[in-house]
């Protein structure tokens, strides 16, 4: 039972926001000592673990390609593509972004989106813009909700798209860990294929919730502010 203290080290370490590298390093050493391994055995465990999990880090080989393309406007081109979809409602736009994010992540293009690269500069402003076009100026509370949903579309799309790509860290972690620990043989491709059903569910569920966002915005913005559905253009004009 005492080896479970190693898990506790991880929990406390992450909870107190220590540097994750140090947390994991200390938890590894502590667990090894608790399991009565000698210092030499612990070092060997770190070494063996590193050697057999190298496949997790090999995606680095793709960075020069992505870097070269970004230098030449890859993100700008992605922005242009998304910009062409601008004349949509908030929910439809976000659902479409979710789909794009999932599809590109499934092709390994995980760094195309992200909170800093795409959500703040592009997705959230466009989602808000779509709502403003329909309802006029937005109350702070609604603005926050739209931004939160913009972030969620990006995160859900990334999480449940990337595992369909076989060279992503999590897939390689599974094969690395299982193949070395249980002396078996799993292929990344088999794992990536079984990520597809969940990816489809994720798109249907989150996509549906994003589309429902439109209706909840209609309801919240139409009800107390009075008749904006009927003379929405007037209210919007007056508010300017």
């Amino acid at each position, binding site marked *: 039972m005492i*080896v479970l203290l190693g898990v506790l080290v991880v929990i406390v370490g992450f*909870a107190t926001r220590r*540097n994750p*590298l*140090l947390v*994991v390093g200390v938890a590894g050493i502590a*667990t090894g000592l608790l*399991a009565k*391994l000698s210092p*030499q055995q612990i*070092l*060997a*465990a770190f*070494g063996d*673990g*590193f*050697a057999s*999990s*190298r*496949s*997790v880090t090999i995606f680095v*080989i*793709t*960075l*020069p*390609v992505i*870097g*070269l393309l*970004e*230098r*030449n406007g890859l993100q*700008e*081109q992605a922005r*242009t593509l998304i910009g062409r979809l601008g004349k949509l409602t908030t929910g439809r736009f976000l659902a479409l972004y979710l789909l794009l994010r999932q599809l590109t992540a499934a*092709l390994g293009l995980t760094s195309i989106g992200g909170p*800093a690269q795409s*959500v703040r500069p592009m997705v959230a402003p466009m989602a808000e813009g779509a709502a403003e076009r329909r309802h006029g100026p937005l109350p*702070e509370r609604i603005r*926050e*909700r739209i931004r*939160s949903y*913009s*972030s*969620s579309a*990006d995160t*859900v799309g990334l*999480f*449940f798209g990337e*595992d369909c790509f*076989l060279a992503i860290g999590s*897939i390689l*972690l599974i094969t690395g*860990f299982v193949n070395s620990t*249980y002396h078996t043989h799993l*292929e*990344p491709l088999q794992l990536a294929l*079984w990520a597809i059903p*969940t990816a489809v*569910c994720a798109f249907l*569920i989150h996509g549906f919730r994003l589309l429902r966002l439109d209706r909840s915005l209609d309801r919240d913005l139409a009800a107390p502010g009075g008749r904006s559905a009927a003379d929405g253009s007037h209210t919007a004009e007056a508010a300017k």
Partner: protein
Amino acid sequence: MIKAEWFYWLVGAVFLAMAAQMAVDRSNPKRHGSAAFWGLLGACFFYSSWVVEKKAPAEPLGVAVLAMVCLGGFQLTGRGVPRTTTPEQRTASAARLGSRLFVPALTIPLVAVVCASAVKHWRIGGEPLLEAGSETILGLGFGAIAGLAVAMVVVRERRPTVPLHAGRNLLESMGWALLLPQLLAVLGSIFQVAGVGEQVGKITEQMLPDGQKYVAVAVYCVGMALFTVIMGNAFAAFPVMTAAIGWPVLIQQMHGDPPLVLAVGMLAGFCGTLVTPMAANFNLVPAALLELKDQYGPIKAQLPTAGALLVCNIVIISLFAF
């Protein structure tokens, strides 16, 4: 036969080349620390080959790993000023090249899939062309090389140092975090050696009615999600829960399909990532970037989806794994 180790050496060489660039990059205030960290990582990729073949002791590699932990953990690495194009240049280039820019990026997964499915069966003199069992990894390597070649043609770049510098910028911006997934895998294997999974397994067995397939599936998935909420990372939860219940109970005892159980189990962990503030980079950082008053806004937007998807994952394993 083309060996996977050759590809690891290529990755190691890329790290070493980038470390050399960092060592002379005076715009990086911590250039020596950075160069040491990435150089050590590159060297470890080479040395690991002998450790895997049991031709060299693993202890020196363990020392190197701990040295990297210290370099990264005590903030001794930094980044230089990226040498890149201006936004105006990028916009002009994007307008000129259009969606051709996506072609090299798409080449990588395409080649990887072709290698993993078709080239896998090619033989020369009775021996497989690609090392058996490493087709996907080698495919990624060939995909990256092919993608780079296509990219150089598409953007009409002749100097090989340009993509190397561009890749190094991305590497520096990720920083030590790049080592974390691999280190979590190391932690998982140490937990394994120390028997953490067995202990968690004993606890779950005591609570689990015997032979209840669907209860076991639910325990595995919910356990993955909960552990992920606690540790903030599905990568850290995966080795523990898999050693505790995924492998011994679902796969060995109940003969579940390993790739299915493990792939979907990891995705159940991702449901936990969606709702934990511990996964700061996905949940709290966006809230800060978007200047939200409620820092849990994204988590609230994701919570119902995460719950529903967890149920989906349990159903998928229950329906298809046995």
